[in-house]
């Protein structure tokens, strides 16, 4: 059994003339909390998309707990235990918060979704409310997406991804679009919930305070390559990172 939760070997991906990944190689140990930083277009989201099957690499290999997942579909990868949240929360806009949560629980239940069991069965509703309460968004249970603050949408997106008991969780900019005062509370909630599940976490983030506070290790991306890979303080002190990522030089 591999001690690495996730491995990437020499991943390459081009979109026309633009190179979004140029030989990305990494190995994420089980239980690690790593962050991915980089300016827009550096290749962070492309990396997340490749790991979760939304985009296929031109070359290279991705493995989850030793198993090759390079050519699997998003659904197959999700079923194996890799979950993701999105930079723009992917929710069902015509449904309430509770219904969104129920969908997630239904799909990830012990049994396949039923043709006869009511979606709003008390057992599932209670479980959905429990999760919403854990993320402190249960008060919004009957609200539609258009009526929700950005932070609640982010939390719901993450809560839905988490309900399948993932072993690896990829969070794509979990605090983007969220008011400054909400960022830490949101990250605290997410980390608290994820730590209870012993999940390996990779999160994409632009806010360096959040990166420093929550991640054990940082990968800095630039132009489809990893230009620094170390503890947060080391990476943020790296001249290349300061030049190309944080803009301090």
């Amino acid at each position, binding site marked *: 059994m591999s001690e690495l939760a996730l491995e990437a070997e020499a991943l390459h991906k081009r979109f026309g003339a633009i190179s979004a990944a140029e030989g990305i190689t990494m190995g994420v140990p089980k239980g690690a909390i790593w962050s991915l930083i980089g300016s827009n277009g550096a290749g962070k989201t492309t990396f997340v998309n490749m790991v979760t099957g939304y985009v296929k690499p031109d070359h290279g290999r991705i493995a989850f707990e030793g198993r090759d997942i390079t050519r699997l579909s998003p*659904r197959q990868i999700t079923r194996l235990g890799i979950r993701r949240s999105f930079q723009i929360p*992917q929710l069902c806009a015509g449904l309430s918060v509770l219904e969104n949560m129920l*969908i997630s629980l*239904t799909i990830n*239940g012990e049994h396949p979704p039923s043709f006869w*069991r009511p*979606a709003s069965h008390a057992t599932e509703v209670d479980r959905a409310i429990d999760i919403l309460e854990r993320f402190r968004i249960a008060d919004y249970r009957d609200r539609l997406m258009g009526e929700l603050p950005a932070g609640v949408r982010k939390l719901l997106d993450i809560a839905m991804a988490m309900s399948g008991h993932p072993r690896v969780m990829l969070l794509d900019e979990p605090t983007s679009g969220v008011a400054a005062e909400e960022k830490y509370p949101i990250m605290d909630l997410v980390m608290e919930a994820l730590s209870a599940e012993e999940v390996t976490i990779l999160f994409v983030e632009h806010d360096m305070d959040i990166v420093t506070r929550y991640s054990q290790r940082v990968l800095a991306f630039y132009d489809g390559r990893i230009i620094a890979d170390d503890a947060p303080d080391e990476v943020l002190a790296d001249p290349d990172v300061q030049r190309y990522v944080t803009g301090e030089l």
Partner: protein
Amino acid sequence: MTLLRSVPAASALAFAALVLAGFVLPDWAMFLVTMAFAKGLVALGIVGLMRGGLVSFGQGLYFCIGAYVSGLMANWTGITDIFLLSLLGVLAAGAIGTIFGPLLANYRGIFFAMLSLSLSMILYGALSKMTTLGGTDGLNVAAPTFLGYAPEGRPLGLALYLYTSAIVVLVGGLMRGLFNSQRGLIALAIRDNELRIEYLGASVRTAMAINYVIAAVLGGLGGVISGLAIGHVDPEFSFWTTSGEFVFVAILSGYLSIPAVFVGSILLEVVRSFSNLYFPNTWQLALGIFLLLVIVLLPRGLGSLTLRRRKAKEQA
């Protein structure tokens, strides 16, 4: 009102009302309602697809398969029992739907609509050229029997009406259960956000294929009843205008309420019958104006009226 929210109780009440109506309705109205219910079954299948974000413009395919099964079985094997014919029609339509469903489930929007339409038009073209099946003239269908009971005249119309009503109530109840089920909620979610559903681990394609097969089965059932009610089937059952009528009813009723589908179907038959009677050359115009009015005044269909009433009561 709590009692009416229970599907079995509401179904039983609806069936009792339909049975009583059968004994007072004149023959023409009974036939009209029977046909409207048969077509409503097909439209209900489209409503099931619409909940997942798809609209089929080719349900005439399954309607026609069901109708031809009823005609051919009576002519070739002598089977006239309506229960058996319904079963055979459903099996035939379901089998064809199971072949095409997984293929069509890869497509969305206009591509799905046009592919489904093209399948029904292929059947229309094939039937029109097959003289062994009556060509464009079609086939006469023997009067149905009901577990050995062989009525004639008004009792036949009444028996057919009651059978159709029972089917509508049964299917309506089952579809309500399906729409409220876990699978039903996933279909609604797919309509909103396919990407999210795939990233939760469910197969959107499988869900779409299942909805398509269910729609095919309902199309076949509606076709059997229509063929038996009219006593004649022809390739027009698979023509695009027939499929268009089912879409018309589905849009008219919306996807929020199952009774609305059958009410919408009856409304369409009434508007068509009376406008055909009074404006024989321009009845399609009357139909078009009617649909426009519904779209403008009730964009979510007739079913949204019940939702509005429920919300108003909850607020009160």
